């Protein structure tokens, strides 16, 4: 630590997406003002969760200084325009809805929800937004002429998280001057006041820094182990604690889905993420409700005959997070901070948000750090709570009766009180911006609308709320026109990605 308590160096412990995204955002923002070191055990490897991102990733990568073409080529990325939830409501074969990334037409100035609820003929997502039509046809959200990170429709990515870590590592070391140490941490040294003064590597000895970022995964070596911050288990709300994952190679010219497909199963649900080279498929379930042989059977049925050739990997998930995320001079990012089932791809976005806050609010001195940490803890806890509620929302509205997993999910004792209260409100008034007034909201009111109405929830129509029927009709017509226009003009995901292998997105 510098004599006057100035913050001059940051040590990130652990690589992977969490470590390297944090290193990249801090180094890109602070340049030579801050010495950024990342120490990781290369032989320990990374878990590589989070193959789906949020649209925020576009801005994150731009800030770090990567071009979209280089990023997409290196991580075998594809475009993601939302999620399709199949069989979540009734479990029937034709039961599905979308949570697209484009807001309902006109939202939030015009709220179509009351008009749709007054006459819910077709699906909500397909009536208020054009994006579902693009997804159903496996079309891309942008053109070859669209500049880097700019789309015709809002989009995020599906990617290979291991390759993302490698790309970021190369960029951080080569372009951003991040100091990289390959070592195994054998000890963490504390000062009398309880700050971490150094991590001790097996080969490099003590590595000192003014601020440490714990990216050591589930182990949480610094925040959890060394500083004793407890883990708060949230499996009372979110039951999923196991995943069985496979990677299914795909044909070179096969269509690539433009959305994450999440298909509910008897004891949980299956994710299906299409990349140009493979599909990542995994079954997440609750081990309290089902054994893995029954799950494997369902996963095999989903994958088809090729399942026999694959080697499924079982992953244990601890649903929950640390009681604090920043304590003294240690802040945790990624799995070291916590983890939730991947239902709405919250892992990478929480890494981005945390790393961005650390980079932009980097205290200049140790004396200012406790305040920054307090704010970070309040904000981050708020985010975890909102995500947990939103994930739970997907379960509580299900009408599935085929297992204890689904029935238990509707037990009020497992539903956060805030969510129960809000559901009561939404019976008479659609989710609106007023329901989500914090600067740190994770999901816009529109996301709640997509899930609620997709799951069969209805808000009682109130005639007084239907005052602008012409504007609403115009918006419905605009959606229909956009659907026609864009399904006729957008290239397929596969065609655009094939072209991207040869040409680059223009810089502007």
């Amino acid at each position, binding site marked *: 630590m510098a004599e006057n308590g100035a913050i001059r160096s940051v040590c990130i412990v652990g690589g992977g997406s969490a470590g390297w995204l944090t290193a990249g955002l801090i180094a890109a923002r602070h340049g030579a003002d801050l010495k950024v070191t990342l120490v990781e055990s290369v032989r320990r490897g990374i878990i590589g969760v989070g193959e789906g991102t949020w649209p925020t990733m576009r801005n994150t990568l731009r800030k770090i200084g990567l071009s979209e073409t280089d990023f997409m080529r290196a991580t075998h990325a594809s475009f993601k325009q939302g999620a399709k939830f199949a069989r979540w409501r009734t479990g029937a074969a034709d039961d599905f809805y979308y949570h697209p990334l484009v807001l309902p037409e006109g939202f939030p100035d015009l709220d179509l929800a009351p008009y749709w609820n007054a006459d819910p003929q077709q699906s909500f997502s397909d009536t208020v937004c054009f994006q579902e039509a693009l997804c159903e046809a496996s079309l891309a959200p942008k053109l*070859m*002429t669209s500049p880097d990170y700019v789309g015709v429709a809002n989009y995020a990515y599906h990617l290979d998280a291991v390759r993302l870590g490698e790309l970021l590592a190369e960029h951080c070391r080569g372009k951003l001057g991040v100091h990289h140490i390959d070592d195994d941490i054998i000890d963490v040294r504390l000062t009398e006041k309880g700050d971490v003064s150094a991590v001790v590597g097996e080969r490099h000895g003590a590595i000192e820094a003014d601020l440490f970022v714990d990216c050591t995964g589930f182990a949480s070596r610094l925040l959890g182990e060394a500083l004793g911050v407890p883990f708060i288990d949230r499996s009372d709300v979110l039951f999923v604690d196991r995943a069985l994952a496979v990677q299914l190679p795909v044909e070179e010219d096969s269509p690539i889905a433009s959305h994450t497909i999440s298909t509910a199963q008897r004891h949980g649900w299956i994710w299906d993420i299409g990349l140009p080279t493979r599909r990542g498929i995994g079954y997440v379930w609750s081990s309290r409700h089902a054994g893995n042989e029954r799950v494997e059977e369902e996963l095999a049925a989903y994958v088809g005959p090729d399942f026999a050739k694959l080697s499924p990997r079982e992953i244990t998930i601890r649903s929950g997070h640390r009681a604090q995320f920043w304590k003294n001079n240690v802040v945790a990012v990624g799995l070291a901070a916590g983890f939730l089932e991947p239902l709405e791809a919250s892992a990478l976005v929480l890494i981005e948000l945390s790393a961005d806050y650390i980079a932009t609010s980097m205290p200049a001195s140790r004396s200012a750090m406790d305040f920054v940490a307090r704010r970070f803890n309040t904000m981050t806890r708020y985010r975890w709570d909102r995500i947990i509620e939103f994930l739970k929302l997907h379960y509580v509205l299900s009408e599935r009766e085929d297992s204890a997993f689904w029935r238990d999910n509707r037990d009020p004792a497992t539903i956060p009180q805030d969510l129960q209260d809000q559901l009561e409100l939404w019976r008479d008034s659609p989710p609106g911006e007023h329901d989500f007034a914090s600067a740190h909201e994770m999901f816009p009111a529109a996301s709640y609308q997509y899930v609620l109405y997709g799951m069969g929830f209805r808000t009682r129509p109130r005639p007084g709320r239907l005052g602008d029927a012409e504007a609403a009709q115009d918006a419905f017509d605009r959606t229909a026109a956009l659907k026609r226009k864009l399904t006729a003009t957008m290239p397929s995901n596969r065609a655009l990605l094939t*072209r991207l292998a040869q*040409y680059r997105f*223009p810089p*502007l």
Partner: protein
Amino acid sequence: MTIVPLNRAAHSGLRIDPARAAEAAAAVHLVPLVASEIRQVAGQFPVFLAKDAETGQFYPAALMGLEPQENLFWNGAALEADVLPLNLLRLPFFVVGEDAEAAIAIDEASPAIGPQGTCAIVDAEGAETDYFRSVQTILGRLLQGREETRRLVDMMLETKVVREIKLDLAFHDGSTSLLTGLYGIDEVALGRAREKIAAFDDLMILAAMALSLDKVAALVRRKNARIEAQSAWFTPGS
């Protein structure tokens, strides 16, 4: 269009009227350029960068109309311009293929081909005519210019002198048009980047492109004249 490889046996008897070849440009608002002609063409037309729809790559082009499929320099018989881009002068001939594979082709459907044509490809002795040799020179410049043009465009993007220009225009009859997808050289950015542009020739090309943006006014003038001529035509009772 019917573009076929040029072939001595099939095409030696063809007669071509070069004046009519430019008819193909009557419905073209953007004509691609090569680096070596930009300075000269920029004296007549505004020169922008546009993006190829297939590849997303920028290419320099002369703007001749204010909406797709409009050429304001076409008067029904000829292009009213002192300088024409090589890509118009070469018509009805084309280069097909890349590098060593490159070959000359001809549009057999071109209105310039016909018995009344003033120029031949080969003379009575079977030798190439002066006309055809000049066409070959033009095609050669276009072919050789590809790489140089690529380098010039990359340099413009690297030095960050390119910015999007939306032509939001109003005409005398109250109508408006918005032409997007055009990118020009920004004078202020060019001023900042001039130390980074080593070759004087490059700097002059970029300066010519920046100054050529003023020539959009000439297109607006032509458009107004065209609107006026059309409205006169449609005046009731006249």
